[in-house]
C-alpha cells in the first residue's frame, strides 16, 4: 500500500453521514436508517465485521451530533452560501458546519481572533443563520418532556377524579420506561441503579 496524497479533501460531518447511509443501504444494515429487507437474504460475511462496527458507531455518533437523517441538503447548502459571504477560513466554515454553534462563546472558540475580525453584529448574524437552517433539537426535547409531563398530570388528574386506587409501583415503572427511551437519560438510569443497590 502506498499513500499518494495524504489530504485530498476535507469532508464535513454531513457528507460523511451521507456516505455512511449509502454503506448501510448497500449492505442492508439499519443502524440509523429504516432497514430494507432484501429479497434474497444476504449471507453474513464475517470479513466485513470491521466495516459494520465502524459504520454503526460512527452513524450513532453523527446522529447524536445532530447530523443525522433530518438534515436537508438544501439547508446545508443555504447555510454554506451564507457563510461564504463572511471572510471565514475554510476550516472555520467546516467547524461551524460540523458543530453548529448556538452561542457566542462557542462561535468564538471556533473562530480565531473573532473579536478582531468580526463585529458583534456579524457574529450574531452567523448564529441566527445557523439557528434558521438548523433549528436546535434541544428545544424539541424539552417540548416533548413538557408534553409528557402534561400527560402524566392528566393521568393523575383522572385518577384523582375516579378515585381509583393506583398501584404506585406500576405507575413508577411506566414513567421510568417512558424516560428511558431518551438516550440522555442513560445517566439517570445509572443513578437509579445505584440508588437501588444502596436500598437493597
Amino acid at each position, binding site marked *: 500500500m502506498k499513500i499518494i*496524497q*495524504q489530504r485530498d479533501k476535507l469532508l464535513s460531518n454531513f457528507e460523511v453521514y451521507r456516505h455512511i447511509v449509502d454503506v448501510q443501504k448497500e449492505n442492508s444494515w439499519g443502524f440509523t436508517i429504516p432497514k430494507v429487507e432484501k429479497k434474497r437474504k444476504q449471507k453474513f460475511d464475517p470479513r466485513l465485521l*470491521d*466495516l459494520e462496527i*465502524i459504520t454503526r458507531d*460512527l452513524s450513532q455518533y453523527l446522529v447524536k451530533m445532530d447530523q443525522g437523517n433530518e438534515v436537508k441538503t438544501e439547508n446545508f447548502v443555504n447555510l454554506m452560501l451564507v457563510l461564504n459571504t463572511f471572510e471565514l477560513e475554510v476550516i472555520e466554515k467546516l*467547524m461551524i458546519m460540523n458543530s453548529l454553534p448556538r452561542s457566542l462563546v462557542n462561535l468564538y*472558540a471556533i473562530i480565531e481572533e473573532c473579536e478582531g475580525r468580526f463585529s458583534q453584529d456579524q457574529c450574531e448574524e452567523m448564529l441566527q443563520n445557523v439557528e434558521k437552517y438548523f433549528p436546535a433539537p434541544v428545544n424539541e426535547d424539552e417540548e416533548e418532556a413538557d408534553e409528557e409531563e402534561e400527560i402524566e398530570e392528566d393521568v393523575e388528574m383522572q385518577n384523582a377524579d375516579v378515585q381509583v386506587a393506583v398501584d404506585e409501583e406500576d405507575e413508577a415503572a411506566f414513567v421510568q420506561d417512558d424516560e428511558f427511551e431518551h438516550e440522555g437519560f442513560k445517566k439517570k438510569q445509572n443513578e437509579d441503579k445505584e440508588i437501588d443497590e444502596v436500598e437493597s
Partner: protein
Amino acid sequence: MFQLSVISDLIRIPPHLFNLPRDISIKQELNVKHANKIIPKLGLVISVYDLIEYDTGLFRPGDGAMYVNVKCRLLVFKPFIGEVISGWIEKCTADGIKVNIGFFNDIFIPKALLFESSYFSIDENAWIWKMDEDTTLYLDINEKINFRIEEEVFTNVKPKGPVSSTENSNQPEKEQTPPYALIASCQTDGMGCCSWWE
C-alpha cells in the same frame, strides 16, 4: 474531522467473488483490508469512499485469485490540529481525562492542558474546575464535553506473540499504547462541558 486520502494498493480478489461486478468486489476487498484500521502516519480509516482507477488484474501461478492494482480514495478520521470536537468523558484519573467519541476512544486530555486551577477529586472521581471563589464546575464521567485537538501520536504497535503457558498468566495485562492517539486540551472559553456555555 474527516478527510479523503488517495492511496494505491494491490488487492487480492478470491475466486468466489468473480461473479460480482469488478468494482463491487474490489470495494469489498478494500473494505475488508482497511475499514476500522489505522494506517500509520495517516489516521483511522472508516471505509472506501470511491475508486479512481484499477487495472485488469493478473493471475499468479499456483493461486486462483486475481491481483489488481487499485487507486482509490479512503474516508479517514484525522482531526486537524486546533479542531474543536465534542465527545463524552469516559474516565477521570489523576493524570487527566480520557474522552470517548463513540467510534474512537484514544483521546486524552492531560492535566497540564486542563483549565488552570482545576484539580482532581479522588472521592468524587471527577475533575473540578474552580472558576472563581464561589463557582466550582464538575467534569463528571459521561458528561458531554468540548475539547481542542493539540497533537496526534502514532506508535508502532507490534503484533502480540502467542501466549506461552510457562509465563505467569495471572499477571494483569499492561495497557497497550494505542497505535493512534490524540492529545487534546481544555483551557479556553467554550471548552469543557457543553452545558456550561448554553
